[in-house]
């Protein structure tokens, strides 16, 4: 029982991450993808914070000051992963903000935020570019033929 629970945190983080990853891959809605990316990253945060826990530990803040002396009531949880994750949370919200800005721009110029529709429109853009070139090529050929 203890063994299973001892590693449970590490498993649940994998589950959370994979739920996020599934959303990123499988959901065609761009906002859903952005949200799922957030879930995916939170999974990693859970892993890091789980790493910091120590049996019977408390928050790594040296508690009260008594008679001018700080009192230590360790063991304390490891503060290093907390620091790293603070940084990572900031990064993830920055990424989210930029993603949302891009999505708004996409909505402005495509009129939709569904990846498959956008993909189709992009494809049409490229196809029309390609066809225009082809038509010009054909015209050139005809002209060359005419001259000959």
């Amino acid at each position: 029982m203890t063994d299973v629970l001892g590693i449970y945190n590490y498993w649940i983080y994998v589950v959370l991450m994979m739920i996020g990853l599934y959303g990123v891959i499988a959901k065609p809605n761009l906002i859903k993808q952005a949200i799922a990316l957030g879930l995916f990253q939170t999974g990693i945060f859970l892993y890091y914070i789980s790493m910091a826990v120590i049996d019977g530990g408390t928050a790594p803040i040296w508690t009260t000051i008594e008679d001018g002396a700080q009192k230590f009531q360790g063991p304390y949880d490891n503060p290093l992963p907390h620091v790293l994750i603070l940084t990572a949370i900031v990064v993830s919200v920055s990424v989210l903000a930029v993603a949302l800005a891009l999505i708004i721009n996409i909505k402005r110029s495509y009129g939709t935020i569904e990846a498959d529709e956008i993909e189709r429109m992009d494809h049409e853009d490229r196809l029309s570019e390609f066809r225009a070139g082809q038509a010009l090529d054909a015209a050139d050929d005809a002209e060359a033929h005419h001259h000959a």
Partner: protein
Amino acid sequence: MLDVQAHLPVLIVTIPLICGVLTIATGNGWKPWAWATAVTGTVFWLALQLMQQVLASPTGMVSYELGNWPRQWGIEYRVDALNAFILLIVAGIGFLTTIYAKKSVEKEIPADRHNFFYAVWVLALCGLLGITVTGDAFNVYVLLEISSLTVYALIAMGKDRNRGALTASLRYLILGSVGASFILLGIGYLMMITGTLNMQDMHERLMSVPGILQSRTVLVAFAFLLVGLSMKMALFPLHMWLPRAYTYAPSAVSALLAATATKVGVYMAFRFMFTIFGVGFSFVAMPTTLILAACASAGVLVTGVTAIRQTNLKRMLAYSSVGQLGYIVLGFSLANVNGVAGSVSHILNHALMKGGMFMALGAIVYRLDRCDIRSVRGLGRKMPLTMAAFTVGGLGLIGFPLTAGFISKWYLVQGCLDRPHMWPLAGVVLLGSLLAVVYTWRVVEAAYFQEPDDDRPVQEAPLLMLLPMWLLIGASIFFGINATFTGKISVTAAKALLGVGQ
């Protein structure tokens, strides 16, 4: 007052950081550009100084402990021949593309936000430089995110010319974030098992604690780092984001990215695989050589064929970049001196050639507003200098003798032959060159042997574009004729990475 020499590694990152932030206060017009040029110029000078310092140092490396904390506790900057070399490339290309950017940015970016654009531009360089100097695994992740976020924004700035820039940027954002998260996860697994974040310290731990290298945790960490890094450096088949991003980004941004961003990704792979895990684990205990060589060769061939089919020249060069990256990866996957040296020198050579070629395309876009294969017809006479630069760059991609590309491919082929049973890879290198001949020839043919569609007079590109373009192309010829410097540095770096005696 300030001893610049003693603080070079940190100045090279913090100067662009501070000055990049200050860029938003420079107002409008030419001022942000002039400021950015001055900053990147200073950084280039610092990179040169640092290179000299590293070469002169008896230990072959320079270490800087930030905040004066012992390196095992705080963050360390550690520069050896390899970093100094990559720094020099990034700083140099950054400087030249900044000069180049003036004209194309004036044309492609709304005038009221040039200060913000250059701020992001300089910060992107800051992030790339930071990744290259740091010796701390988590610091790599933070800086990676700075460089990625700025690059997403820069790519999206092509939105006014083609809306595809937005989807390209978002796709890169999602793939890039997943890749970066994998890297973060890999670092987390490593930290869990080693208890430290300093790369050197991690390596010592991995080498000294019995049984640690056989643990499943280290294995998974390695796998996830490998996948994450491959996404970041656009190794085939994880390159999906790259062609679009390069195609739709503003011209100056394409030139900057093609020459620096993926190169820094490769550098990270060097650091993680050689410095942290060590050659013994990465390439002997794991089937990494096989996996990477297979991906790289497939990449060289598939993207070569795809590049031939493209009508948009920027997209063609983008696919070619994935292929060239295949050469770089192929080189270091061999894990012998010649292969790694070829890989390191190809980082420089490809940066020079691709940077120059993207600049040439940018000049064409600047004059003609498009860059498909039809638009270059007859341009050989109308824009002789630009097209000549493009052609010489193309020769470099092929690996024509007397160009820099020849030198690195020479090393690569030798590396393939040095490794038993790996000689077919030499064939891949040669076949890739053949494909490069085809796609370069299409452009050359159109430019020099076909009549233009119309007789509209076209001016040669402005001097501010030609100058950096030809500096890059000129350098690629110079390093093709005189390979002493690059050869020496890349062999030194390769030996240091492989842990072989000097």
